[in-house]
């Protein structure tokens, strides 16, 4: 049986060991600053999947071991470090890395590697040991969602597209960027009845391209019920001032195209007062200012 002081010492040493290994994994300069740069720029070709030039840069031991042409990082010797030489060549040099048109390292990333190699290229060096290393770029905050994620309603969207002969196209690969209601292939198939059937996806529609469709004032009620609608094109449709007045319900509308409609000046004034509206077109309408 161990004595209390022994147990205490044991606990303490376990504690310090844990601290040390935590520092190793978490707060070393290598883990925090170097590994992310290599991960971002190098390991696609020099990593677990590919090892071009028999070089792996995703693990410290392999990094120090080097590749088929020899050592790539010489601790404390910047000039002798092939890795550093390659990333600082002119970008059109055949030996420049990253190769094949992949984007060059950012100046801050080069600087971090430079400081680390010069300081001895150690795995254990704590994060705080190199003063003045440029801070890593803050990741861009994700764009605010413009609409709910459309993916859970994919089947419904597909059904509507087939049934109505229109498209509900994701604005981008980001699933909270909303959908574009697109009718260019068959504008004449899109009428008030079709719009009325979009109620179940109304909150997903961020842009509605309805130029030259058959929609009328009756159809505008369905659009006014699209809470996330930001851009609406009604060019050359039969909508009138009466129907357009309902669009003042759109709380996010930024862009409204009324070219070649019968919109009148009074309702245009009303629409212009919408706080979110940035662009409004009235060319070829009774509301258009004279030349």
């Amino acid at each position: 049986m161990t004595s209390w002081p022994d147990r205490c010492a044991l606990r303490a040493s376990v504690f310090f060991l844990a601290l040390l290994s935590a520092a190793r994994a978490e707060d070393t300069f290598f883990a925090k600053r170097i590994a992310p740069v290599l991960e971002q720029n190098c390991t696609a070709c020099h990593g677990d999947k590919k090892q071009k030039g028999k070089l792996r840069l995703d693990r410290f031991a392999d990094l120090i071991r080097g590749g088929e042409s020899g050592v790539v990082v010489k601790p404390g010797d910047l000039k002798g470090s092939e890795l550093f030489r390659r990333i600082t060549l002119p970008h059109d040099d055949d030996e420049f890395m990253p190769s094949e048109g992949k984007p060059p390292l950012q100046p801050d990333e080069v600087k971090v590697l430079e400081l680390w190699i010069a300081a001895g290229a150690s795995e254990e060096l704590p994060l705080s040991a190199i003063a003045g290393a440029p801070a890593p770029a803050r990741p861009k905050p994700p764009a605010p969602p413009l609409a709910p994620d459309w993916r859970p309603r994919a089947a419904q969207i597909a059904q509507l597209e087939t049934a109505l002969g229109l498209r509900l196209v994701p604005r981008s690969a980001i699933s909270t960027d909303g959908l574009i209601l697109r009718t260019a292939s068959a504008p004449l198939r899109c009428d008030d009845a079709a719009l009325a059937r979009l109620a179940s996806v109304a909150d997903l529609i961020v842009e509605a391209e309805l130029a030259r469709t058959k929609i009328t004032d009756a159809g505008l009620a369905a659009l006014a019920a699209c809470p996330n609608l930001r851009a609406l094109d009604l060019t050359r449709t039969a909508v009138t001032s009466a129907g357009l007045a309902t669009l003042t319900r759109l709380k996010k509308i930024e862009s409204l195209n009324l070219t070649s409609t019968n919109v009148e000046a009074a309702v245009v004034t009303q629409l212009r007062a919408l706080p979110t509206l940035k662009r409004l077109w009235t060319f070829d309408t009774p509301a258009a200012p004279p030349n």
Partner: protein
Amino acid sequence: MASPHSHPPDDRHLCSDHGGEYPTVWDLPHVPLGLKQEWLGLETRRHFLGQGVKALGWAGLATLLGRSAPKLLANTAPVRGPALSPHFAPKAKRAIYLFMAGSPSQFETWDYKPALADMFNHDLPESVRGGQTLTGMTASQARFPIAPSIYKFAQHGKSGRWVSELFPHTAKLSDDLCVLKSLHTDAINHEPAILQLTTGNMFPGRPSIGSWLSYGLGAANEELPTFVVMTSKMPHRTNVQALSNRLWSSGFLSPEHAAVTLRAGNDPVLFLNNPSGVESDLRRTMIDGVNDLNRQLFDRVGDPEINARISQYEMAFRMQTSVPELADFSNEPPSTWELYGPRAKEPGTFAYNCLMARRLAERGVLCTQIFLRSWDQHTNLPKNIRLMAEDSDQPTYALVTDLKRRGLLDDTLVIWGGEFGRTVYSQGTLSAATYGRDHHPRCFSMWMAGGGVKPGIAYGETDDFSYNIVKDPVHIRDLHATILNQFGLDHTKLTFKHQGLDQKLTGVVPAKVIHDILA
């Protein structure tokens, strides 16, 4: 184990360029059926994967959307242009590229160099040329006399942009244009330079910008091609370079991404109309029959090119309706003709093509490219550049203005420019009345408008001789990266695997998006 020679080869005629006639794995003796099926599966999968990352992205998306994703593989007519998602939300939905083939001089158009006025007929300092190899057209000249622009410049708009008197109409757009003065290219002769601008590479066989856009984004309007090219009647003909469809081909991308060219005249697309005596129903039956045969072939070999062929037949059939409507200008209001000028009524003129470009934009066509040739003014520049400007100035202004008043400019990227610049020194004799200018790849000017590009700015600077760039160079590949960016496409991710490389519009040399010019 039996030697391969113990089984005499099939004695059927081997005709490698007629798909379906040559022996396939299915015809090989002694290969277990399971292995053959595996081969077909792999082969089909290989073709499918060959569509690249975007196709896979689409497949995933389409599955989620419930569209039959494996349409590429399925025994059904492919629906053209599945909705592909850009990588991020785009600013531009369409591009209209006014290609000034032959290359207008930057001195008489957008790169104002007032200091040259005092250097008329001085020799270009050797330090400026810096030992550059010149073309055979001027390399043997005894002198390189400086030729200032014969045309005056004035400031226009709130931006105070200096614009040449050659462009009285376009000058009114000063606050809408983003003028790039620091383009540079690798080629000093027309064909490679035009190819580099249109396809990103000096060698033929690469997809053009419009094809990449079509591949990346698909069609908004499935009744019309995604990519349309028009060539324009020339106001005069001097040093005219041939244009060929390699400037708008889809290269190694599927042929449906190649441009459809609209011709001047009564038939904008040749052979689109049914011959007399052939009714639409009969034509439909014929296409259905051909498509059936093509599908049978597809089932055997799984080559997506076959589906591209099917979709081309379908596109042609749809264009039988959509193109006559497109080309019928009778519903244009009088204001259109006031804006574009009377020449817009004459098919094939630059003015007509500009109006057509607006109509294509309205109908959701992704990329329209209009070529206007004969800007290659090695001699007689003052006279000939004026003819070109007179022909194109008003229509150019009209197009941008028309897009703007109709609310289309915001998401239409308009691009104007040639394939390289021209020399500050005169080619041939310099006089007070006339001069010429040779090719100059080190700097040239272009402009862009709309499509999320900052209006009313100029970007990049050249030295006093517009010979070398002194600030913010823009290589062609940077221009391409920027164009793709406006469509929500990351130029490093829009790739197609070909010849063992993930091919890109911007090629293998690093390209950068010019963020400084983006709104």
